[in-house]
């Protein structure tokens, strides 16, 4: 399994973060983050709440602004230039804890909106692509309903399909299963696993350690705004080096 996971990782750099620092007011949230993500890598980021893991991945598509350091996504340097930011956002898909679907649009319209307006794809073609991805997340029959009529798990799968419709090269997941019932977590994780198997570059903030073991090729542990430890999942779970990591793992796996 571990070998199979490594195979499709290339040497090409997808995301490069160098010496990145971020403050909320005077509070130092992210401290000297250095991270290189290669194309095809699946990275799981975990850590206690308030450790800055969500903030980190939200910096990658500039939902949060960083104050120091350099972020390069797909060769594009992330500056405050709005054109650059929109270009990066259209290449980087993101799924949120609360799905953030647009409640006034149908499922299909949710999926076709960005391709039509950002990519300027004809409506017909965008709808075909949308149906393709809705079939992939196994809810094509809900296409004409509205988000409010779907269960949480279905909504999160729509959110994944919506991001995929932009044909992103990188996917970010910000605790995608934390707001879901246990029965629905599995259907979302299955979709994510399928995506990982196709070689999508993924950064995933999650507490689903089973998922980390199964698909990640790197697990990153963060605490107090810093990367404390990163390793392959086998090593990370069986042989954590830092004391802080050991404590965290014993707390989430110990019961």
């Amino acid at each position, binding site marked *: 399994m571990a070998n199979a996971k490594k195979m499709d990782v290339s040497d090409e750099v997808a995301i490069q973060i160098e010496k990145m620092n971020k403050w909320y007011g005077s509070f130092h949230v992210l401290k000297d983050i250095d991270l290189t993500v290669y194309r095809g890598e699946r990275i799981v980021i975990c850590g206690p709440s308030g450790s800055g893991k969500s903030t980190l991945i939200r910096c990658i598509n500039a939902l949060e602004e960083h104050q120091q350091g350099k972020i390069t996504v797909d060769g594009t340097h992330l500056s405050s230039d709005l054109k650059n930011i929109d270009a990066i956002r259209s*290449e980087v898909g993101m799924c949120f804890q609360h799905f*953030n679907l*647009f*409640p006034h649009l149908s499922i299909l319209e949710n999926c076709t*909106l*960005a391709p039509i307006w950002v990519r300027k794809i004809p409506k017909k073609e965008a709808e075909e692509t949308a149906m393709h991805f809705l079939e992939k997340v196994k809810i094509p029959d809900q296409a004409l309903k509205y*988000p*409010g009529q779907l269960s949480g798990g279905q909504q999160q799968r729509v959110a994944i399909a919506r991001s995929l419709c932009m044909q992103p090269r990188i996917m970010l997941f910000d605790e995608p299963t934390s707001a879901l019932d246990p029965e629905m977590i599995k259907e979302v994780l299955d979709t994510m696993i399928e995506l990982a198997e196709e070689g999508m570059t993924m950064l995933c903030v999650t507490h689903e350690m089973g998922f980390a073991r199964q698909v990640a090729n790197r697990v990153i542990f963060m605490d107090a705004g810093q990367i404390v430890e990163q390793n392959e999942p086998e090593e990370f779970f069986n042989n954590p080096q830092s004391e802080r990591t050991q404590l965290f793992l014993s707390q989430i796996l110990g019961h």
Partner: protein
Amino acid sequence: MSKLSYVRTEMLPEQAPPVAQAGIVKWLRENLFSSIPNSILTLASLAFLYVILSHVLPWMFQSSWTANSLSECRSMIAAAYGEGTHGACWAVIRERFLQLVFGFYPAELYWRPIVAFILMLVALAPVLFDKLPRKMLWFSAIFPFLCFWLLWGGSIWVPIVALAGFVLGGVAYALIGAKFGNLPATIAAFLVPVLWWLLLANPVSNGLHSIIPLGLEAVESAKFGGFMLSVLIGITGIVMSLPIGVLLALGRQSDLLIVKAICVGFIEFIRGVPLITLLFVASVLLNYFLPPGTTFDIILRVIIMVTLFASAYMAEVIRGGLAALPKGQYEGADSLGLDFWQSTRLIIMPQALKISIPSIVSTFIGLFKDTVLVSIIGLLDPIGLTTNIRADAAWNGIIWELYGFIALVFFIFCFSMSRYSMYLERKLQTSH
């Protein structure tokens, strides 16, 4: 098997809910006579209703529609229903109906406001009901100019040249946008029409008129009045205040300091000043500030003031809608790469406006009713006309009938707006 363990072997099928025992007796029991205090309240309310209606209904129906003066009216009612009967003199409505509707608009030209009103309904229809063909919106866009021409008359070239200003603005935006980018294009789209209207519009329309003299008989603003004036000011104010309010609300949230300061200053100033004051400014003061020799129509000035007043309120109402949107909606739109105007137009505004529909319609209704305030600066809206009518010796002393009729017409307009907003809310309901 122990008593604590239990296994369900088959799942229960869904059943219809129990049918409530229907019948009028049950309804009466539940709603009107459920307890002794409730029964007492019901009976007291019925007695109260009886007292009110026993006075109002005879007054309304033991009335006269045919008399030509108040005294004739009274004698006709006395003859028909007995001496001492108090009856309504609806005859004043019959006799002054056209005046209440059109003011002093020339009678032989009544067809023009009537056509304008019918066309207004046609122009509003595609905006109000999205099932209608979208191409009708083109007519809605032209209608304001057509309506202006129909009501005020004059050369047809004036509205056409004014419309050309917008077309020029669009052309300038497209041409300069392709060459120099967005910001210069926006500035050009604003400057070109303004320059056109200020410098070229007059000579061009005069020139065209001397070549091809097409036009209607001109009617001056002083002849406008009645419900025509209320609808003209009210609907223009309503249609203009919504987009201006949206822009002000967005400006107030903007990161651009100067834009934000201007919007906040405008909103707070306009909201802090009574509408009457603004109307006096429109009628009296504005002339001092305008360059000498410019004639700036009084109705136009009033419309501008009413619109500005309503849009300040509108901005705050929409800001409430924006504040009620979860932050996730902005982030969802941002994460897909939509730019500011795209996400505002496609994601944020549709939802913010939907949330604010009840308050928006309240503001509209308030604005429409506020149009009667123009009577204070001497315009002859229905309320202004009542003074005129009562100044006539024949109708001196009549009060209830006139105000009652005006109230009824306003109620019909406002109630339809309220009903429409409820229809819209139901239609936009997308959860369950």
